[in-house]
């Protein structure tokens, strides 16, 4: 018997052949690992005991972590990190984008200067900032120049370490948000602004009544993406402070990393990775819901 393919089936086959590499990649390197991760998150697997040598402990990992001080502190630090980095980055980027677009000469070089940290290798940047924060570095020197006699040991001081990394993160992220805002600003409807000019609206009014609402979809997008990336902060912590001093900069991904690859507690680390995923998922959903309320066009 000879097989005859219908026209639709032929189209299907052609279509699937185009997306095959991507589907394979997602199955192999995202979905299958995720399933595997879910399974081992219910075990007490220690990597040094060898593959398969684990006990299923049910939800014990998920209960135990809430009385693990390292875990709770990492969660709190990550939260502090995200809720400071996100609004500050987005706010500075918006104000900058509007001012540069409207008032500045030499727009391009200024924008590029702000953008440079974003494309720079995070390790190189973190190393430079370690030196910037050192007692003989520019940050300390600047603070001393303003009359502070005993400036803190930024990264070595539990009170300042997280703030120091937050400052660096804002520095490196503001250029990206600024670039996104700039391209959104260029698409704003000019006639509405002209109408506002005729009505005698001043710049401040126009900013709050026109620009901010018009840019709300962009703001919304930036808040989600910055939040998600802030919640996954790892490289600066690993390079600059290793979670210290004490637990002051211990963040979630850093704790997951050390649990898994320093202490080889694969089961426990996987449970924490799932908590990270659940948090990001819930936040994304809440923000999508919220979008309808406050995105004004």
């Amino acid at each position: 018997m000879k097989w005859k393919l219908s026209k639709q089936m032929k189209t299907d086959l052609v279509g699937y052949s185009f997306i095959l590499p991507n589907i394979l990649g997602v199955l192999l390197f995202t979905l299958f690992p995720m399933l595997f991760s879910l399974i081992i998150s219910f075990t007490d697997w220690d990597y040094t005991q060898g593959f398969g040598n684990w006990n299923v402990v049910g939800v014990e990992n998920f209960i135990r972590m809430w009385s693990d001080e390292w875990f709770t502190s990492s969660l709190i630090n990550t939260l502090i990190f995200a809720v400071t980095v996100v609004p500050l980055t987005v706010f500075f980027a918006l104000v900058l984008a509007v001012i540069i677009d409207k008032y500045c000469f030499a727009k391009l070089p200024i924008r590029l200067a702000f953008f440079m940290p974003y494309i720079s290798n995070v390790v190189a940047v973190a190393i430079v900032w370690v030196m910037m924060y050192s007692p003989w570095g520019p940050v300390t020197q600047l603070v001393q120049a303003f009359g502070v006699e005993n400036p803190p040991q930024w990264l070595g001081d539990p009170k300042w370490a997280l703030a120091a990394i937050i400052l660096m993160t804002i520095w490196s992220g503001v250029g990206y948000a600024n670039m996104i805002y700039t391209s959104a600003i260029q698409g704003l409807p000019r006639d509405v602004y002209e109408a506002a000019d005729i009505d005698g609206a001043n710049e401040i009014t126009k900013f709050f009544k026109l620009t901010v609402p018009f840019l709300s979809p962009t703001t919304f997008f930036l808040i989600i993406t910055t939040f998600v990336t802030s919640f996954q902060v790892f490289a600066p912590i690993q390079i600059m402070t290793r979670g210290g001093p004490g637990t002051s900069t211990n963040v979630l991904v850093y704790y997951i990393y050390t649990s898994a690859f320093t202490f080889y507690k694969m089961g426990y680390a996987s449970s924490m990775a799932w908590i990270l995923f659940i948090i990001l998922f819930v936040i994304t959903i809440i923000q999508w819901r919220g979008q309808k309320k406050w995105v004004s066009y």
Partner: protein
Amino acid sequence: MKIMKNCRKEVIQKLIPRILFTILIGAAAISMVTPFLWMLSASMKLPLDVMKLPIEWIPDYFYPDNYKKVWNIGGIAARDYHFALAYYNSIKIAVINLAGSVLTSTLAGYAFAKIKFRGSNVLFLLYLATMMIPSQITLIPKFVMFNKMGLTGTHLTLILPGLITITGTFLMRQYFMQIPDELRESARVDGANEYMIWARIMVPIAKPSMASLAMVVFLWNWNSYLEPLVFLSDWRLYTIPIALTNFIEESVTEYNLVMAAAASALIPAFLVFLFGQKFLVKGLVSGAVKG
């Protein structure tokens, strides 16, 4: 006369805020690049001059040998940091993943945008949804998987997952969506099949978008840190970010060398940025525009 005067007054009134804001924002922009300037200045100094106070922004004595030491040129280094090898590794991985990602994204992006196969919308949504999965959750399983597959100790641990990007597929689909269907239909009438249409019509017109994607993928790979840190254990395999962290551990006190190494690590990204700025920004921005 009076009109002229008013006119001039208005121009000046407009000019003053512009000049003030340019100075203000310009100062902020300079402070943004200060860390880079400090890095360059320190990378040219003698070891002890790095810590000298007050800070010498322009060193009294330029010492470019730091770079020679980092790169092990001329045999003056106390030891070989294998920086050139790490550079080669990083470029190799970034270029392979760039080529792979552009190819797979252009294929899938075209199919999702234009070919009406059954299940395409559902598959695309599911595919996009996987973007929400943080890479940290798949890290441990991948580590175990690569061990089992015997891939540990090779660059395939970074290359195999790096050959596809979800953002890239999304980007290319967005691009192909706005290409009119007539182009495709007229080619079909001439007897071309989908593969020919893709290769001869779609790929050539999509080149600017492909260039944007290529630059974004290059930067991601060049700057990627967590995965190489976990998957690469042998110095012969190190990529630049890992070689850099290793470098600090080995030469803790020689800040001038560390800064020369950091400056060297920034060059490729800056070159990409310098020559492909328009494409790069387009790539970064178009991923951000609502779909």
